[in-house]
């Protein structure tokens, strides 16, 4: 018969075992990620898509990958109004109070304000957009998982030229604007590719318009008269709408418009009053196309939606949020493998990024294989792009994994 003393000892032992069972097997090391956002500036209306995707990836990764590694990530959003001055005053506080291992950026203001500070602070930043020629410098601390807009457009030109069996160079017209240095940089990439590959592409004219053009009939008519076979509009949806209206006005259904991810087919289709009006037009970008096709990327998105409370819709902004956050967590995995779960810092994460290939499987097809190195802020070799189109009124994939040609700097 158990005595009172043995009963007490058993109770204490049981309580101790229960406590041990309740405590985690391995304490998770937390790493902070600064999530830059523009909730009150020009991109406020689409920002929840981008940040929602980032948060969902963090939740998924913590639960399914980080747990086994003994690591978790915590995101914190910072609204910078798309203003470099705001980024400049925010950053010292973020660095000292949050001590992030990586920053998820939004666009030009982040890059402008931080590109000369991050090397001092030894913290890398990952963007979601395509890269820019002006940021094409060696030893970067800011990384774009996608090459420049010029690279992406060049991939399309090469593909289209071959696909349509065009004799001689493909004649393109470019609609751009000088309102933003980024827009200028975008069309300079296409011009550079055309200059270096006169047998593939010829720019008939680059038309500069106001940033939100309302009527481009005269300009588009001139491009058509000069033989443009494709009109490239990689600026914004307003320019796509104006170009399409002009093409409709002059009755030219045979000249497709080429767009990018930020002004892509669904967004421009919505602006023009129906995606079916963009029948036969194209968008090109180096990440998954948010079409209705049952792709691996789409399945990953659906999984995040069902299990990890992702509320953002299936669109280009969500894919952009997914692409940068997936690169961040996969780079963290690589850094953990190199230096250990409790020794990762910004420098280790960057080192892991430039020395590890993040495969397309690791990003669930959101991105192609991404191999950064220290020669440029974006991968320069082995890149592919996807081409979307509207067929029978449906947003669909025209071509996948189209090789991205090499471009010279401009």
């Amino acid at each position: 018969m158990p005595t009172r003393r043995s009963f007490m000892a058993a109770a204490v032992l049981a309580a101790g075992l229960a406590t041990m069972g309740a405590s985690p097997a391995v304490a998770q090391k937390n790493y902070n990620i600064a999530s830059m956002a523009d909730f009150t500036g020009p991109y406020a209306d689409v920002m929840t898509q981008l940040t929602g995707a980032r948060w969902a990836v963090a939740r998924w990764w913590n639960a399914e990958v980080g747990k086994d590694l003994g690591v978790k990530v915590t995101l914190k959003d910072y609204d910078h109004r798309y203003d470099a001055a705001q980024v400049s005053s925010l950053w010292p506080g973020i660095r000292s109070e949050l001590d992030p291992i990586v920053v998820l950026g939004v666009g030009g203001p982040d890059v402008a304000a931080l590109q000369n500070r991050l090397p001092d602070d030894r913290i890398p930043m990952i963007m979601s957009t395509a890269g820019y020629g002006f940021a094409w410098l060696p030893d970067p601390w800011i990384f774009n998982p996608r090459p420049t807009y010029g690279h992406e457009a060049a991939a399309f030109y090469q593909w289209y030229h071959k696909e349509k069996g065009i004799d001689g160079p493909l004649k393109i017209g470019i609609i751009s604007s000088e309102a933003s240095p980024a827009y200028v940089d975008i069309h300079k990439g296409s011009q550079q590719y055309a200059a270096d590959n006169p047998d593939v592409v010829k720019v008939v004219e680059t038309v500069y318009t106001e940033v939100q053009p309302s009527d481009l009939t005269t300009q588009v008519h001139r491009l058509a008269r000069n033989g443009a076979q494709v009109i490239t509009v990689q600026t914004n949806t307003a320019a796509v709408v104006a170009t399409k209206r002009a093409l409709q006005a002059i009755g030219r259904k045979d000249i497709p418009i080429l767009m990018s991810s930020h002004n892509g087919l669904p967004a421009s289709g919505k602006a023009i009053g129906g995606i079916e009006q963009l029948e036969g037009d194209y968008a090109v970008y180096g990440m998954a196309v948010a079409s209705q096709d049952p792709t691996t990327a789409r399945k990953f998105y659906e999984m995040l939606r069902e299990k990890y409370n992702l509320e953002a819709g299936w669109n280009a902004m969500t894919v952009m949020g997914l692409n940068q956050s997936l690169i961040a967590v996969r780079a963290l995995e690589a850094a953990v493998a190199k230096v250990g779960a409790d020794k990762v810092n910004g420098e280790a994460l960057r080192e892991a990024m430039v020395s590890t290939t993040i495969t397309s499987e690791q990003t669930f097809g959101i991105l192609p294989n991404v191999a950064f190195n220290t020669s440029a802020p974006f991968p320069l070799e082995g890149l592919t792009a996807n081409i979307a189109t509207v067929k029978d009124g449906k947003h669909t994939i025209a071509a996948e994994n189209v090789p991205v040609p090499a471009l010279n700097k401009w």
Partner: protein
Amino acid sequence: MDPSGVFATRYERDQALVRTRKQLAWLLAFAVLLVLLPWFVGPRLVATATVMLITAVVVVGLQINTGYAGQVNLGQAAFMGVGAYTTGVLALKLGLPFWLSIPLGGLAAAVFGFIFGLSAVRIKGFYLALTTIAAQMLFHFMVLNLPSSWFGGSNGLSVPPATLFGYRIADESSMYWLCLAFAAIMIYGAYGIARSRHGRAFIAVRDDDVASGMMGIDVVRAKATAFLVGAFYAGIGGGLWAYYVRFVAVDQFTLLHSIWFIAMIIVGGMGSITGALIGAFAIKVVQEAITSLGPTVVEQFPFLSGDIVFATMNVFLGGIIAAFLMFEPRGLMHRWNIIKRSYRLWPFPY
């Protein structure tokens, strides 16, 4: 009005910035506090203070141009940009030290501003506002279209950090002190201009340019000088900005920034150097507070999504400015003067 028993017996005394020993003591204590600030607050606040100082220099220039001389100016950000680019080019390509490149940046901006000041001689009001908007556009297109080897074009311009005797001025504290030194000199200079014959000429031209011309004031010169001085201040602010961010691009100096500068002098109080400083401080404090508060609110109340919180904060910021324009259009400086006078007269009503 002065405290009881304090009255001037000489003109210099009447024009003195500091009129009592107590004021001098407060001013010195405030100056010491500003110098020691980086030791007492975190890097976030030091960075915020640095941006405030840069903004204050630009806004004080606008105050001289618009608040004192009455010349509407919606191109102050462009003048700041000219200063930033000039400073950047001089530092990057000629390797000039900051103590030379920043003043030269200010001079370049002054020349650019002076050209537009000449148009103010013939036009005023709405038309002058449009001309200064043209300055904003001209700056933008010039930078983008001039050979990129000059100002970097769409690539922007990377600026090397400022150095002094081999010491790299790149961290928050040293940059703050650099901006504080320049701001102190520029603000002291602004008070001097406001009290000088030039300042009085500006005020006369602002109040009635025809009458001031009849009184012997060279109106043409006064208007052009106001633009020159205002743009010089903007250029100095731009030079500091170039060294602070170490990257200059045209989209850092937009019309929207010019409008914010106007908002600062309206909130602070037109026609007062102190008002310009208060306006710059007040607007920046509200902007920074809202930016800092947003993530914390989202963190503490996750059921409120980020877009709702941040959008509400922005509406709140706009609301404050609108309310200010409706209920205190003469600015915070006017309110402060009322409080000061009431305190000094108390318990008498007048």
